[in-house]
């Protein structure tokens, strides 16, 4: 039976990686780089951050290693899985110019092979759902995003070690993965609970040395999820804050937060749902071609609101307000839910430790309509 929850010994994860590789997938998983957890190419379980935990607080991210046997005893790193679908930089098309000045435009086809990401968090699956809505569920669809998205297989790992900055329980997006994955794992001290969801996931699972999970193992998994909810101290009101935010466009807090905010854009760079990007041309030195490239952009930059000679959002208060009213307000009308999935990255990676949940509470109260 592959549809019941199975148990996989810790070393069995290597069989999963090999099974994925055999099925043609390039595997990516969490690893340590520059003192943070990042996703990178992986071929062996030894590359996983075994024994590491992360300590996050406003403006702070530190890893610590101890004799913990687990590989997923951390919340998240700065990088979600966003770069694997919405690339940080991508060529959209190229123009070729001949000596007569005639132009020819050629499409840039994103040609990536099948990719499996191991260790995806529930918050990032929720973010992926939102990015799908933005790039794929409205006409026209984004060809680069589509090409990457179609090749993706996701192995989720339920989060058991939320950071102090996490609030996915209040946004309804975690800590357990409930949709959007192919396979989901719950890490226990000696191995994993494992479940398939998609046909591909179930097929892969059938090739692994699993056995049915015991009642005790299942209870342990559930208990750890409950604890992961209980540990979360930050929260956003679960209901739509749009009205409360737009009723408070002149709230004194916008100016107050602007005194602390550096307008650096770190929050938007680590946010798994932010989709803004800028386009620019990169002409070749020989003058015969030019690439039209897009790059992640941020509503905190001066150029973001530039229009024929002036900057619409000239000050930081206006930029912070644009970000928050969009993320927590307008997203509801555009995509049917809030643009925040409770990952807490914008809090940890803000150089001055601005806390989105605190700002939202100061501006909206509890936001009850």
């Amino acid at each position, binding site marked *: 039976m592959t549809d019941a929850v199975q148990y996989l010994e810790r070393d069995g994860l290597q069989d999963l990686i090999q099974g994925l590789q055999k099925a043609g997938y390039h595997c990516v998983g969490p690893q340590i780089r520059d003192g943070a957890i990042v996703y990178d190419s992986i071929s062996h379980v030894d590359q996983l951050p075994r024994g590491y935990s992360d300590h996050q607080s406003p403006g702070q991210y530190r890893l610590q290693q101890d004799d913990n046997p687990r590989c997923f005893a951390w919340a998240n790193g700065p990088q979600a899985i966003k770069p694997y679908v919405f690339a940080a930089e991508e060529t*959209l*098309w190229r*123009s070729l*110019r001949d000596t007569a*000045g*005639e*132009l*020819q*435009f050629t*499409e840039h086809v994103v040609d990536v092979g099948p990719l499996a990401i191991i260790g995806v968090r529930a918050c990032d699956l929720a973010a992926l759902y939102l990015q799908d809505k*933005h*790039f794929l569920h*409205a006409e*026209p*669809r*984004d*060809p680069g995003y*589509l090409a990457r998205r179609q090749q993706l297989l996701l192995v989720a790992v339920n989060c058991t070690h939320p950071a102090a900055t996490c609030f996915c329980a209040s946004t309804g997006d975690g800590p357990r993965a409930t949709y959007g994955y192919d396979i989901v794992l719950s890490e226990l001290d000696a191995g994993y609970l494992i479940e398939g969801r998609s046909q591909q996931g179930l097929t892969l699972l059938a090739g692994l040395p699993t056995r049915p999970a015991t009642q005790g193992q299942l209870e342990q998994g559930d208990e750890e999820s409950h604890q992961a909810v209980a540990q979360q101290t930050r929260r956003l009101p679960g209901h739509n804050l749009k009205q409360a935010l*737009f009723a408070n*466009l002149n709230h004194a807090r916008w100016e107050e937060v602007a005194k602390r905010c550096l307008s650096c854009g770190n929050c938007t760079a680590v946010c798994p749902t932010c*989709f*803004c*990007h*800028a*386009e*620019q*041309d990169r*002409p070749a030195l020989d*003058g015969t071609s*030019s690439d*039209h490239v*897009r790059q992640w*952009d941020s*509503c905190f930059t001066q*150029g*973001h*609101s*530039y*229009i*024929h*000679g002036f900057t*619409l*959002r000239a*000050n930081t*208060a*206006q930029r912070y*307000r*644009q970000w928050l*009213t*969009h993320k927590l*307000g*307008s997203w*509801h*009308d*555009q995509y049917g839910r809030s643009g925040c999935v409770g990952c807490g990255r914008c809090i940890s990676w803000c150089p001055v430790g601005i806390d989105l949940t605190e700002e939202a509470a100061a501006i909206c109260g509890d936001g009850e309509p």
Partner: protein
Amino acid sequence: MTNPYLPYEAEVIERIQESPTLFTLRLRFTDPSVHDAYRFAPGQFNMLYLYGVGEVPISIVSDPIDEQILDHTIRSVGRVTRGLSDLQAGDRIGVRGPYGRGWPLTVAEQRDVVVVTGGLGCAPVVSVINYIMRRRERFGTVNIVQGVKHADDFIWRERYEQWQQAPDTKVLIAADLGMPLWPWHVGHVTDLFDELQFDRERVIVMMCGPEGMMRVVVNHMQAQGVGDDDLWLSMERNMQCAVGHCGHCQYGDKFICKDGPVFCYRDIRNLFGVKGF
């Protein structure tokens, strides 16, 4: 699937200097099948691409039934538009479009029409005025109001003079700063509002130009008893992709490039005029 970002090559058929800073590029797609298949509605815009420099959103001035040439009137103000202003007949650029929602022409039929524009705001509505003039019998009284800062900025004088000859049509022009022999009003365009002729029960107002000017028009029309459903505005923001992906033209829950640029006032009244959005 076709790539929504890919431009098509177009040739500059003619370049017209309209004023010291305004110029018009008359364009034709070099691939006849692309040119033949191209359709647009008044109020929509194209992305014009200058080789090696970048793209800009520019509204289409031509009449939709003119199958020959696509006109774009541009103010030379930034990196791309300054480069575009150096082009001559025969030069090639990239064009993709049309994008956005245009003016509510079917809604406007059988009704009195007031068109108010400021500065180069006239460009996005010239095609709608042409559209109305060619089907004059389908519309009630038509008022065309154009305000400019300096009399020098007033372009297409002949068109306005021609429109003035049409039956039941009023043309009102104002310049903040006049010049010798300036035959129209010197002062604000709002000074002329008392001369407008329309039935507030059946009027539709279309406006384009600086938001401060449109705010004044909205206030005036509301004071006259015109409903928010009958006020239509063309909005502008930074646009890079033109298909609702890049996020720059975000306006509350709207993307100006896709949900607009023409909006019914009712749909944007909560945010309209709020600084920073």
